[in-house]
């Protein structure tokens, strides 16, 4: 690990100022040469591996009193960005009213990690592509822009079939973001030039020709809260995660589903996919295909097929086309059996 300056954030307003002196400094690996530290379960790993080399680390855990609580109201759910994954996952009201959120967290990582990691940090976790995480591989456009992509013709069983580019096929590895996508969450962001609120769908950037730029956050911007609007679909929601082993593994394919049924007819449905795409992924065409129809094997299969139109498999991840579709079908049919 390279030596770095360690700061503790005193307030939401002052935290971004730690980035001030560095504003002019060129972006290292697409990120500011300073990083916020929350639970550290992504950041410290990558610093030890020399993948991330921030000159300055700003510890935001002192801001927990401001950004560490959960509020639930008729309008929806508000989660502080510093809420621990385990706290949100175990919250009775979240489990009851927003099961897809609770499940996406419970099925992620391990108990130890969930006790450390925060919701804000979770959204910004970085890909598990092995070629990215090990600096001895010279070709990785995400780590070292312009160097190539070792995964394209290397091992890509874990990699994305949706939203990838010729420059990077890395998968967005997280689970929780899919649930937020399905529920149309928004993020509150504090930054050097004021605050703003953005839809979760605009947080992550597809790799395109700049895979090293992963989000739309400007240097110094701090996620402070996540808001999930209430809706008739939140209770009939679930997160289905498919993996090689029963626990403690990233998704091979996953689906976050939120469903609003009127009798047997689909009034509204949200389908977000994980494990298969370069960014948290909404399957909007698939959703549209179901509106006004009954949810059954045939309609679910047709929707699932639609969700994977345009998928671009490589040598080792072709199975994800089939697996992803089956995951969607299973998740949809399972959601239909839930109480609304």
């Amino acid at each position: 690990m390279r030596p770095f300056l360690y700061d503790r954030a005193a307030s939401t307003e002052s935290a971004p100022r730690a980035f001030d002196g560095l504003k002019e400094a060129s972006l290292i690996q697409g990120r500011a040469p300073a990083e916020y530290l929350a639970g550290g379960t992504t950041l410290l790993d990558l610093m030890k591996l020399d993948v991330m080399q921030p000159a300055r680390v700003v510890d935001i855990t002192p801001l927990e009193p401001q950004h560490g609580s959960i509020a639930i109201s008729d309008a929806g759910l508000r989660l502080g960005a510093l809420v621990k994954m385990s706290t949100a996952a175990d919250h009775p009201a979240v489990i009851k009213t927003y099961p897809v959120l609770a499940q996406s967290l419970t099925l992620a990582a391990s108990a130890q990690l969930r006790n450390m990691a925060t919701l804000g940090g979770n959204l910004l976790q970085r890909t598990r592509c092995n070629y990215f995480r090990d600096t001895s591989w010279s070709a990785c456009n995400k780590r070292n822009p312009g160097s190539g992509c070792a995964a394209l013709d290397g091992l890509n069983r874990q990699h994305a079939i949706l939203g990838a580019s010729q420059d990077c096929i890395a998968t967005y590895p997280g689970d929780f973001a899919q649930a937020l996508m399905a529920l149309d969450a928004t993020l509150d962001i504090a930054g050097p030039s004021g605050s703003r609120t953005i839809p979760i769908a605009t947080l992550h950037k597809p790799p395109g020709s700049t895979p090293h730029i992963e989000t739309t956050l400007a240097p110094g911007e701090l996620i402070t809260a996540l808001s999930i609007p209430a809706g008739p679909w939140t209770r009939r929601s679930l997160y289905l995660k498919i993996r090689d082993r029963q626990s403690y593994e990233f998704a091979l394919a996953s689906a976050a589903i939120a469903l609003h049924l009127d009798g047997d007819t689909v009034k509204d449905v949200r389908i977000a996919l994980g494990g298969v795409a370069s960014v948290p992924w909404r399957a909007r065409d698939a959703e549209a295909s179901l509106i006004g129809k009954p949810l059954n094997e045939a309609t679910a299969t047709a929707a699932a097929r639609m969700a994977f139109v345009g998928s671009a498999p490589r040598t080792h991840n072709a199975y994800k086309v089939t697996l992803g579709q089956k995951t969607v079908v299973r998740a949809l049919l399972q959601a239909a059996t839930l109480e609304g």
Partner: protein
Amino acid sequence: MVDAAAPAPKANMGDPVPRYDARAKVTGSALYASDVALPDVAYAFLLSSAIAKGRIKSFDLREARALPGVLDILTHENIGEAIRKVKFFTEGGPASNSILPLGSAEIAYGGQTIAVVLANTYEVARDAAHRVKVDYEVDRPTATFESPGAVDQELATQNKKHDDPKVGDFAAAYATAPVKIDVAYSTPAQHHNPIELFATQCGWNGSQLTVHEPSQNVYGLKNGLATQLGIEPSQVRVVSPFIGGAFGSKGALTQRTALVAIAARKLGRPVKLVPTREQGFTVATYRAETKHRIKLGATRDGKLQALSHDGFEVTSRPDPYAVAGTDASTRMYACPNITSNVTIVRADRSTPGFMRAPAETPYFFALESAMDELAVALAMDPVELRRLNDTMKEPIKSLPYTSRTLMPCFDQASEAFGWSKRNPQPGSMRDGDWLIGWGCATSAYPTQMAPATARVSLFPDGTARVEAASHEIGNGIYTVAGQTAAERLGVPVGKVQVLMGDTDLPPAPVSGGSISTASVCSAVAQACDAIRAKLGDNGTGAVPTVDLVATLKERGLGSVQEYAEWMPHGAAKGGMQMLYKGAAQPIGGAKLPDRIQFAFGAQFVEVRVHARTREIRVPRIVGAFASGRIMNTRTAHSQYMGGMIWGIGSALHEKTEIDANAARYVNTNLADYLVPVNADVVDVQVIMVPEEDTLVNPLGIKGIGEIGIVGTSAAIANAIYHATGQRLRDLPLRIDSLVEAA
């Protein structure tokens, strides 16, 4: 309450005495190699090659050296002639590969150690290593089977000791067999990944070197290192009282030890190395990927007429490592016509090495899957197929098994499992959305031993001491050696002190090949019997006929101490001297001229495969094993169960991914190299079937450390076939292939 971890002993089984080292381990007072605090220690960090083939043109060490706290950086350019060559183990040497550490600019495999950074702290050493710039000349490497540049060689031409088992006329018998199968299987590269990393600490006191390193062969390490450093073995002491998992990975002399010793000599202070988890994939050895082609021919009623097993194994360019499991796989069942062949395939890879049941794990996946396929072809129950071909003589040379309790294992495990309720039709059993499949397979492991010594002392206060440089790799050797002495000397087990894992103690053989308990306990018993004889006990039973402590006191002696050298059946004459050099070879199994010695078992597995998404889970597994005398049902249970759990991982999860272009390992961490987690291990039942074998050794002990993993993967594959009708022949058995075909 019944304690499943400490089953009540049945016939010919010892008490489930708690582990000798349990308290030390759970309280943290057991010091592992990296826990030992040496004064003024410096830290080493390895730099590993980023290419698999080529050479180092130059290093740029400037930035690394400039970091405050960096003491030195060893490379092939500056280490000089410090390290002498030792032999690879197939040539009778202790080395895990025959590449000289930092011996030249040549790169033979990805991850090869190319520099050692030395610094005042671990953090600085690691940071500096990241700042070393290496300019390589890169050659196109060969990754694995069928990669460009792979060279196939018949093992028999590369290893004079290998002889492909054959009998009768396979071709003719196979041609005319009414029922036959011809199938191919493969198994992946796998790494041991013991929890404890491959730590080494070295400190010099004048010309005396002390090495703290987890080792399955402290005498081998001592002697090999002395040769490498050009010093006398008496100048080297290796200390390794606890090993945090080894599974074969800590049995050989790896390149790192000499480098740390030299670094410590150069710096004039102790040096500590703890390679990272990633580096563990190339610092030590691994299980190489294998391929198999099996042909079985049988009569219509299921009698085997022809068996052919061809094995293919990847190895490195310099070393002809092979596990050659055909030695066992051709001898399991009665069959008059057998042929076999082993081919090694050279690639630009690190040299493989022993990993739990090295030969049997891959070769029995193939054999026991093929037996299941034959049972399907015969429309026969797979248990009955094994019963029909059970034999008390191995078929190659017609040598008798010293004991073989295979079918009682099948019967007891099948009964406990409920096999009789199985509907043989694939896809016929279901629980909601989950397809259920039941499968079974044979487990077997050669009973081997090696020369061993022990020193036992009895004191007038009723205590005793056992000294033998064996290795506590989790096998419970402290405990069973102490139990042996307690029983034979008539003292409580709590009064026996056991000292192990130190070359200042009398030598014990490598703790591999499941030989430790049989070898070491035999030596301990022999020393105890000498004490008994000295104190006037002429009995030959396990327990003394006179009160030895009382006699000792009566005679006014301060202590009685006996040292014993024990030689197993079939050991070469010079075996004891080889033991002192750390080079005693295990003998037994199918390698004896007059008989064959194996332990047997049977495993039954239930799998659940999701009808739609096809995840594979193993909710239930039952194994029954018969392995001669069981010294301690608690430690034995743990060994069997651990083997079976590893079998689940080996079947479903474990695979070292190799980049085909770079010939390098890719998933070198425990988030991506999957092993089972608790949630994957639901119900594991171990049944110990009593067996008495008076031939293998006087105590009647067979090895049990490895058999538990053998056959598990086949049982799981067979169960998946039963659940789905799909036959998976390539490990790991993954959702990828199931979901595509579903």
